[in-house]
């Protein structure tokens, strides 16, 4: 593809998919600014390798998104633990308080645990697909997933209905 066509295709992709990528990034980071930075980084790396991507670019960009988020955490070790500012007990159902409580509870997870949950539930990937995207074993996905749910139950017992009972 000619360079100009590459640039046009990339810009079309950015315009079309950046909003969705930003939403996913927000779930991973719980921070608007970090989410936008993460998407910028992923798109930047995708642009650098654009002419080497075979097929649809979005899976590649999303993989960068996930791995870069974990890498960013590893580099900086910035505590992403939210302050426990919510005291109100959550109520199951579609109550907005439940989602606020869920947001806080997700923030209590490690980054990898949160990433696995986002991939499994928000992105609707199977365990095998999640393992492939993150470059880890299926067993690791399973154990991380289990620990993530256990931790959610521990930090937000009022979300029991949302999360499900312990097996």
């Amino acid at each position, binding site marked *: 593809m000619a360079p100009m066509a590459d640039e046009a295709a*990339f*810009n079309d992709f*950015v*315009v079309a998919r950046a*909003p969705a990528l*930003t*939403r996913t990034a*927000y*779930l991973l980071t719980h921070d*608007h600014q970090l989410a*936008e*930075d993460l998407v*910028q980084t992923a*798109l*930047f*790396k*995708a*642009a*650098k*390798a*654009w002419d*080497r*991507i*075979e*097929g*649809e670019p979005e899976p*590649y960009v999303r*993989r*960068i998104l996930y*791995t*870069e988020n*974990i*890498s960013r955490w*590893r*580099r*900086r*070790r*910035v505590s992403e633990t939210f302050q426990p500012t919510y005291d109100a007990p959550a109520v199951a159902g*579609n109550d907005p308080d*439940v*989602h606020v409580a*869920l*947001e806080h509870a*997700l923030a209590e997870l*490690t980054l*990898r645990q949160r990433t696995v949950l*986002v991939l*499994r*539930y*928000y992105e609707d990937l199977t365990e095998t697909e999640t393992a*492939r995207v993150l*470059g880890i*074993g299926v067993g*690791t996905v399973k*154990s*991380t997933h289990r620990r993530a749910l256990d931790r959610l139950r521990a930090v937000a017992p009022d979300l029991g*209905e*949302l*999360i*499900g009972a312990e097996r």
Partner: protein
Amino acid sequence: MSDHLRDGMTRMAERVEPAPPDLTLWTRARRARRRTELVTASAVGATVFALAASVGVLVQPNPDAPDPSPAQRPGIPSLVRGVDGDGGLELETDLAVGPASVAIANPTGAFVVTADDGIYHRLDLPGFDPTVYDDPAIRRTGMVALTLSPDGTRLAYGFHGPLPEQTGQGPGFVTSGVRILDLDTGTVETLLGDQPLPAEYMYYVDANDFQWAVVPYGIRWSPDGRYLVYEQVWNVASSRGVADTLVRAGLQDAYRFAFGSSAPTIHDTVGDTEFFVRNIGSYLNWWSGWPTAVTNSGMMVKGSIGVQFVRPGTRGAWWQVLGVGGVEDAYSSGLVDREGRAILETQRPSSHLLSVNLRTGARERLNLPLVPVQVDLLGWIGAGHVLAQVRQGSEQNLIVFDLSDAEVETNLVAPFDDEGTDSTFSFATDFATVRHPASDFSQAAEDDSDDAAAPQAGDGPLGTDDGGDGPGAMWLVAGLGGGLVAAALVVLGLRRRIRPV
């Protein structure tokens, strides 16, 4: 259960209002890719050198063979990144972050990379003003806003008081000086803080002066970390010039020598064994004036007619002038080893190194296998080996020079990934050795998981030279084979297609 969780996450995500897409990404990414390709080419060159070195070991065992241990240890990261803006980092007011291997300044702040873990920290340095260095012309000179001590435990930087434009009082004197942050304790010391401010301690700001000159510049540590030297422009009444200051770090004990371009012959001694020497002759360029080399026993300064150095045990009249003549001796950086051998870098008539025996004056030209725009010799890291910061075009690299031969061999330690962040870098040279010039922190294990580390997109180490293990034939064969495979992979990597997962 999964439906509930999915629904909750979806609602969370829907609350996000994405920012307008950045359509400059493509241009910036292509520029970065060109830089990456240059670094890759350097890595291939380094591999070739490693192969050549391996062959050499067949004939003679190499005591400086790279350390085969893959264990992570404190050191300079094998990939040094610039910081864009605040880097998304929290501003740390507790400055006791521990020894650092790299200090980074950009137009918005100060950062260090801790040596133990390669983590970036954004520091709240009292009085530090990164904006005074925010000029591409200044950055090209190699002037850095932050200077790490060789052992990485202290960070020196210039500070200044309120500027006239900040006080609204028009041109006037500004208090400025040097501060040292102890990275172990978090305490900040102002040098000369207990003494009355001398005239040259203050800077008169007017419209014709360089903004950067409001703070001390060219700050360098002696290799043992006992001394600090810096230069500062002063402007007092009708007099104007440059003050060089040698400070015994931490003792509030300074020796200041002032001179102007019209009266440049100044040299003196400090105590019985410590020496401070100023060049004779006028400045060649305004950026070439600060001390070229600081040793444990003195310093060496370049000038238009040569370089001066005083040997320990002598007094002022015993200084030597190294190199005389015109622009050929326009040295831009230099080092002195314990045996009295000076290594100078000059760009004229072409970029090369010059070895000068300070006792005899004998000179030898050392040819570089690369064509750098600028070389800043940072420090000795072993017999005959120098750690240098090299700029080639838009690329910056940390490179080890092997000076055992007139044809200098190079070994890429760490490429800089500045990515247009306007960052400047200072390195704690004690962390680099010939056997272990850099540390790869990308494989650090996560604290909370017993899982294997997840891959990092595009973050692989570049150019580290850890490899073989001594002269054994098995290792040689493995090293040669591995080197060839590595070179092939690097070349193929440029063409590898990416398939969606």
